[in-house]
């Protein structure tokens, strides 16, 4: 805190997703780009700070999924305080953190689906934005709106009970957790008055999956075709190949399902992952080193996770997983719009995992933390709602952080989101010299599939603010549309 850091306005996270499209002499799309402004500032803010402050400080990166940053930082610091990587914690420490994480995953996925995606599904992607929003859903489909609100609330209450507060809590500390689950909270989550109990949450999660499957049946062509492109997929998986959102080893598969990275200890992530800087974007482009920049980029998030894992260790979600896998004959699913489907299967999985954990006596008693010999470097990786999240810290012998590197989920999805925008531009802008309303809508739908952590993507009314500029071959701006 001894140095002043000036943040130029342009480096702030702002409310618009910016897209630029360049046409050639024949008015064909020559290039399209999504410009995302990223939060690199935090890597500087934490320098010089005492290491144990990081999980509380860095979670301020985000108001939507702060728990992911809180836990990824805590996991990195577990390594530093000698508590091991993931498996080394006490049963209470690990299980309380897992409960916090599933609560987070549950509320974030519910928010995304009900508040941001359901308006598109219910009213159609081309519907008037004035009704295609969460208020519109509340007016016309009250049941769905209530489900969305209550599921989110349930997840947030789980976060409150484990982290101390619904947003920006302090539960995870280096080497474990700072509290047990109270009997009162446990009973509330298990048998609270309808709908605030785990049975109802599981029922509603299943209903959400069913709702999406029905929608899929009716709109198969659109869902399968829109912004489809093959890619690699990366995530953590449990050692035995199971889906694990809290801890595991890194695995990546190519679009055919061949493992291109497997059983990698994420402490070594720098050996395998490189971040490319491109002059036109503030956000870096990560890729797998051994495949190079052109071929090494990958998708992360719900779709990627269901592509990398072999099975889901909870019965209802596993059943859905099998059906999901059968759509692509067991091969990786490269359909952009299937992110929504995969996200809801994870919603169901998170609910099932919470139910199991709530029955576990370790949450209520037992040692909270553990420590060993301190070392000066630690990496924490977690599967955040939006995808794989890396936190890497190094400390000096005075307990100050001297280096931090974060690769957030949305950064990992930078190239795929650009590819999705390319898809839309090529499909809709060739030969056009004006930006149309359907084009704006399509860009919005393509980006939203990734649930990126831009403030624009989580706009309260579900209408993503976009700023799309069209340039001719001589670089003259010929059209610009901005939605608020």
């Amino acid at each position: 805190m001894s140095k002043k850091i000036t943040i130029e306005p342009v480096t702030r996270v702002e409310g618009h997703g910016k897209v630029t499209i360049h046409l050639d002499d024949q008015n064909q799309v020559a290039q399209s780009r999504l410009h995302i402004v990223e939060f690199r500032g935090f890597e500087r803010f934490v320098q010089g700070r005492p290491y144990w402050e990081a999980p509380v400080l860095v979670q301020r990166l985000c108001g939507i999924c702060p728990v992911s940053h809180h836990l990824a930082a805590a996991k990195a610091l577990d390594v530093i305080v000698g508590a091991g990587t993931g498996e080394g914690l006490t049963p209470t420490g690990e299980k309380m953190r897992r409960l916090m994480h599933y609560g987070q995953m549950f509320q974030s996925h519910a928010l995304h689906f009900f508040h941001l995606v359901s308006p598109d599904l219910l009213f159609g992607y081309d519907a008037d934005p004035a009704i295609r929003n969460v208020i519109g859903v509340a007016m016309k489909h009250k049941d769905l709106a209530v489900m969305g609100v209550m599921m989110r609330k349930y997840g947030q209450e789980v976060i409150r009970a484990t982290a101390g507060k619904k947003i920006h809590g302090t539960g995870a500390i280096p080497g474990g957790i700072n509290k047990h689950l109270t009997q009162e909270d446990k009973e509330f989550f298990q048998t609270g008055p309808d709908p605030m109990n785990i049975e109802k949450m599981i029922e509603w999660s299943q209903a959400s999956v069913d709702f999406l499957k029905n929608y899929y049946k009716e709109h198969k062509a659109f869902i399968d075709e829109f912004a489809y492109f093959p890619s690699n997929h990366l995530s953590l998986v449990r050692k035995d190949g199971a889906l694990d959102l809290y801890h595991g080893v890194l695995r990546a598969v190519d679009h055919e399902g061949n493992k291109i990275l497997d059983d990698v200890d994420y402490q070594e992530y720098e050996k395998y992952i490189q971040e490319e800087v491109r002059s036109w974007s503030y956000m870096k482009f990560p890729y797998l080193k051994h495949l190079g920049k052109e071929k090494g980029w990958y998708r992360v998030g719900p779709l990627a996770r269901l592509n990398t894992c072999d099975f889901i260790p909870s019965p209802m979600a596993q059943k859905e997983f099998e059906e999901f896998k059968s759509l692509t004959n067991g091969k990786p699913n490269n359909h952009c719009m299937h992110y929504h489907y995969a996200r809801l299967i994870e919603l169901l999985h998170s609910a099932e995992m919470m139910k199991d954990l709530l029955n576990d006596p370790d949450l209520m008693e037992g040692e909270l933390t553990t420590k060993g010999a301190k070392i000066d470097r630690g990496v924490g990786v977690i599967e955040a709602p939006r995808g794989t999240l890396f936190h890497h810290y190094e400390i000096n012998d005075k307990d100050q952080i001297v280096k931090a590197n974060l690769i957030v989920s949305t950064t990992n999805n930078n190239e795929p989101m650009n590819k999705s925008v390319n898809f839309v531009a090529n499909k809709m802008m060739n030969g056009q010299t004006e930006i149309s309303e359907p084009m704006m809508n399509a860009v919005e739908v393509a980006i939203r599939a990734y649930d990126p952590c831009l403030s624009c993507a989580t706009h309260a009314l579900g209408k993503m603010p976009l700023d799309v500029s069209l340039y001719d071959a001589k670089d003259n701006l010929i059209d610009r549309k901005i939605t608020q």
Partner: protein
Amino acid sequence: MAEKIKFTIDGKECYAEQGQTILAAALDNGVYIPSLCYLKDLIPAGSCRICNVKVSGRFMTACTTPVNDGMEVENNTPELEELRKSIVEMLFVSGNHFCPACEKSGNCELQALAYKYQMMVPRFPYIFPEKEVDPSSPKLFIERNRCILCKRCIRSIKDESGKSLFAFKKRGNKLMINLDHELAATMTDEMAEEAMEICPVGSILRKEKGFDQPIGHRKFDKQAIGSDIKSVI
């Protein structure tokens, strides 16, 4: 009761020992006068000025002024509360207090006073002073950005021979708290714990302990500062 002196605070009849300060007597009588640098059983410093009261129309620091027989003390008046609030705001702008990431949050007396006075935005411009942290002691992390120069540590954390482990360094607006590293090397865990406890803000941090107290169990999570004062008379 015979040797006690009678006085009033906001019209309430109170009793004090001979030589007792207004602040100490007020607490004994179950009356809260806000303060930051005051700590029971320590020689008062009178530095933070939060405990300003009015006696015979004059402002006095309650922690340094002895009670006189028949004294009429004004404490809980809009004028005094506004003055105290402005001091709290001044303390906020003259340091770098970022509560969201501070481990003393919930246990911090300055923060608790800001809540008590419903401080939203300070009326003074932020200074954002440049302060250096001192991380070099094995047990303590000194976070000078948050120090309010109350001297509580200097007055209370001493070694066996009575030598203070803390002292002020430099002068004027460069004045800063300093930890004697030779003495700090002999510090026990209990002393380190006590030092963190004694600091009203998050300036003295016990290393590697941060955030081990869950939200809901911190000093001011459930009750406002001063609301637990009970009469012992």
